[in-house]
Structures are given as C-alpha cells and as structure tokens.
C-alpha cells in the first residue's frame, strides 16, 4: 500500500533517495535545491540511509565525487540548480563520456546575470548537449516518480548514461503537495540491486578509466557513447510501463491532454503544463479544438513520436522557459519544428518564451496563445514566429 504524504518537491526527491538508498550522495547546497541536500543530510544523521553522504566544497567537486564513486562501482546521486549545474559543466560531459549512471535532481532555476533564484529552464537547457538524459516533471508526484525511474533508466546495461530529473524551482521544489509515496520495499525491489560494470574497486581486474585519446581513438569513443543515449527510448518506455503496472502511474515520452480531434496545440513542459491544462479545459468549454502536449523526456528527444502526434494539426505553439540567444528559436521549439520538417502537410509552428526568472504564467497567457493559434489556423499565415508571454513590452 502506498501512503499519502504532504511533501514539497525537494522533499519528494529526498524521500525517493531515502528509499533507493544509493551508495554515495555528494552535493553542495544551492537555492532552490538546498532542501534536497538538507533532508538527505538529516536522513543520514537519523540513520535512515546507509550510503555515504559527502559534502564537497563546490558543485564542481560534488560531480567529481559522483564520477569517482560511480567509477568505483557505486550507485550515486546528486542534486543542484542553476549556477551549481553551470559549475558542474565540464564534469557533466565527463560523467556522460565515461557512461556513469549518475542520477541528479535539478530544481530548475534561472542563470545569472542578473542574479535570480527563481524557476526557469536555463540551467538544464544549457546542459542539453552534455550527453545526459533529461526528464522534466510537472508536479511533486512526477518528480518523485521520475527520480525513481531515473535509476532504472541510467543503470540499464544498454544505456549506462547519467540522468537528470528537472523540477521547477520554487513552483515545484517549494510547493507542498499530497503525493503517493510507495512502500520502501517495493521501491527497492523496483530499482533492484545495482550491478556496476568494470568497477575500479574490483582489484582482481586492473583497468584504466578515462584514458587519453588522441586523433586515433577519440572519435570512435564519442560514437560509442552515442549508443547509450540512443538505446534509451526503448528503456524509458519499458521502465515507464513497468512503473505504471506496479504503482498505477504509467509514464511515456510525453503526455497528451485533450488532443483527440484537436486542430491546434500548445507544447509546454514542466509545471506550466498544469496551468495550461486549466486553460485547455476553459477553451474546450468555449468550443475551441485545442490540446496540450507536455514533453517529459527532452533528451533523447522523442522526435518521431512527437511529430506523429502533431503532424495533422493546423498550428502549434511551442513554449520555452529559456532562451537560446542568436539561435533559430528557443531549445524546445527548434527540436519540435525540426522533427516536423519531413512531414507534409505539417502544422505551422510558432515559439513563445515565458516565465524567465520565475515570471508567472497564468491561464490568460495560454488563452492569448490559443487566440494567436486560431488566427494562424484560419489564415494559414504566421505573422510572428517568436513572441514573449507576460513581458512588459
């Protein structure tokens, strides 16, 4: 039997960590993810977890500890946000290159400058080419469920790739929610015993981890690394399905909300998708044929599946909680629009940036988008490819 607990997003991650009980947890506190680390420290002090809890002097060192511990053969996790993830940057690529199944909880927060502690996706979007699998959560329940599944995905022998789970800073990390927490034993059974591959602590086999590659091997090793994340989609689906069978909450690449017979669609990730659902309900009541597609997996990007879901529509608005200065639109937009390129007919796709630095996005803003989509669907013309929501113009 699962129990209902009132927890905020950070506490749900810590609760999942307590249940999984990894061998090593190494993290440096940073708002808004601090409470993850604090709660784990408390669990450790209270004797509720058996793994090693390491407090290094920076996030760069925290990820370095994770890499060392994972190479040694341990199940490893960390948590951070914003500047902390940015400081981990070079180590993120090393963790992925060494194919270490580290799991990280990221309370998504804006990047400086200007300094800001509130929620947006600039941090993880900045790490989108680091080779990590990226999963985004709409609410505390999803953050809990995603974090548990992350261990299974990362550690699958065909994947062996680090996974980060995003939960919007403050909006999710600090909001209390009643969530279903599964039994400790059932979670332990679901994640299973960790099987390290070539652990350094196995002294019967002498190996080298992270050797120097010159022009003769680097390219082959990078191609070999791609295999892990390319194998991830099947595993993500299998794990999401199994989780559903066991705990009643199945997961896939994305969630479709009222998409049957829809002519237009809003694509938005994380907490804003919850508000968007309310907007969609109101718009549906007004007779508008609009739906929501909420991507859960951003890396590897489920391009074919998303394109199949959107190809028959007239107009699609992709909402991004980060910018990509100088690029052809923000990160989620470029992925979605690119995925649709080979389809004919295909919908018109526009991009709206919202919520930078924790700026609110309300039902009225989604309605504003829906109105623009209606106009595009009606005329077949896009007047403005990019826009901003709830910004003082």
């Amino acid at each position, binding site marked *: 039997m699962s129990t209902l607990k009132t927890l905020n997003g950070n506490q749900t991650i810590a609760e999942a960590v307590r249940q999984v009980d990894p061998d090593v947890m190494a993290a440096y506190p940073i708002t808004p993810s601090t409470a993850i680390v604090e709660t784990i420290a408390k669990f450790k002090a209270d004797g509720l977890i058996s793994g090693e809890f390491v407090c290094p002097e920076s996030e760069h060192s925290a990820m370095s500890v994770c890499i060392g511990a994972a190479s040694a053969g341990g199940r490893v996790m960390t948590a951070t946000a914003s500047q902390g993830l940015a400081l981990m940057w070079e180590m993120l690529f090393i963790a992925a*290159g*060494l*194919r*270490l199944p580290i799991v990280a909880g990221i309370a998504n927060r804006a990047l400086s400058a200007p300094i800001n502690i509130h929620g947006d996706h600039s941090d993880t979007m900045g790490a989108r080419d680091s080779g990590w699998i990226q999963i985004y959560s709409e609410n505390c329940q999803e953050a809990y469920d995603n974090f548990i599944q992350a261990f299974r995905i990362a550690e699958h022998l065909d994947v*062996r790739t680090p996974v980060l789970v995003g939960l919007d800073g403050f909006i999710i990390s600090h909001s209390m929610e009643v969530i279903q927490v599964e039994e400790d034993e059932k979670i332990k059974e679901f994640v299973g015993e960790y099987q390290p*591959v*070539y652990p350094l602590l196995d002294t019967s*086999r*002498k*190996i*080298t*981890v*992270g*050797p120097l*590659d010159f*022009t*003769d*091997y680097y*390219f*082959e*090793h990078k*191609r*070999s*690394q791609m295999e*892990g994340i390319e194998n991830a989609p099947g595993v993500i689906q299998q794990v999401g399905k199994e989780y559903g069978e066991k705990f009643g909450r199945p997961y896939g690449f994305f969630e479709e909300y009222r998409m049957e017979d829809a002519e237009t669609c809003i694509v938005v990730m994380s907490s804003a998708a919850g508000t968007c659902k309310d907007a969609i309900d109101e718009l549906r009541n007004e007779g508008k044929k609009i739906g929501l597609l909420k991507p859960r997996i951003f890396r590897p990007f489920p391009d074919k599946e998303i394109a199949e879901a959107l190809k028959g529509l007239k107009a699609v608005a992709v909402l991004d909680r980060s910018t990509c200065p100088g690029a052809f639109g923000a990160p989620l937009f470029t992925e979605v629009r690119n995925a649709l390129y080979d389809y004919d007919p295909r919908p018109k796709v526009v991009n709206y940036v919202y919520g930078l630095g924790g700026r609110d996005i309300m039902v009225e803003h989604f309605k504003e988008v829906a109105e623009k989509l209606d106009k595009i669907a009606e005329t077949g013309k896009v007047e403005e490819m990019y826009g901003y929501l709830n910004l003082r113009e």
Partner: protein
Amino acid sequence: MKKETWKELTIGTINLEAGNSVQNLTGTWRSGHKPEFIEEHCIQCFFCWLYCPHFAILVEGDEVKGIDYDYCTGCGMCAEECPSKEKSIVMVKEEVKLAEGGTE
C-alpha cells in the same frame, strides 16, 4: 597495431589492458634528433636515467648501457643533464621517419 572500430570498444572509454602503454612506441615521436651514448665517457652517475621522462635509458646490471630508441622521444634532457667532463650523451641528427598509422 590494429585499431578497434567504435563497436569493438569497451563501454565508457575503459581500458581493460592495464599497462598497455608499452605498446605505444613513443620513439616514433622523435623529429630529427636522437641521443647517442658514448660509453667510454660515462661516469655511471645515473642522472640520465633519473631525468628521462620515458624510462628510455637502458640499464644492464648496475650500469647504464645505452638508449632504448623504441621509447626515446629525442627530448634531449639526458644530454643536457649529463655532467661528465666530456659528454657521454650527445644529440645527433637522424633521418625523420613518419610515425606509423597516425591519422587515418
């Protein structure tokens, strides 16, 4: 040395053959100069052996006997450090041979 394809490589850049750097003949890095050992000048101080960054000084029993050209990169440190009155290691010109199988 046959190079593996990407499919043949071990996961995560792991090298299962510890100590296989002996297969890398760093002697192929020499670019025009090599040290020459002049045994009759040698005072057996072992400075060359101590300073050589590639362990390329050949020792037999208690005596320095020459240079291992398979690994000597021609850096010249041994010749520089050699303290004997008349140098027992001098750098001489050699014909450059291209390294085997560098870029493909």
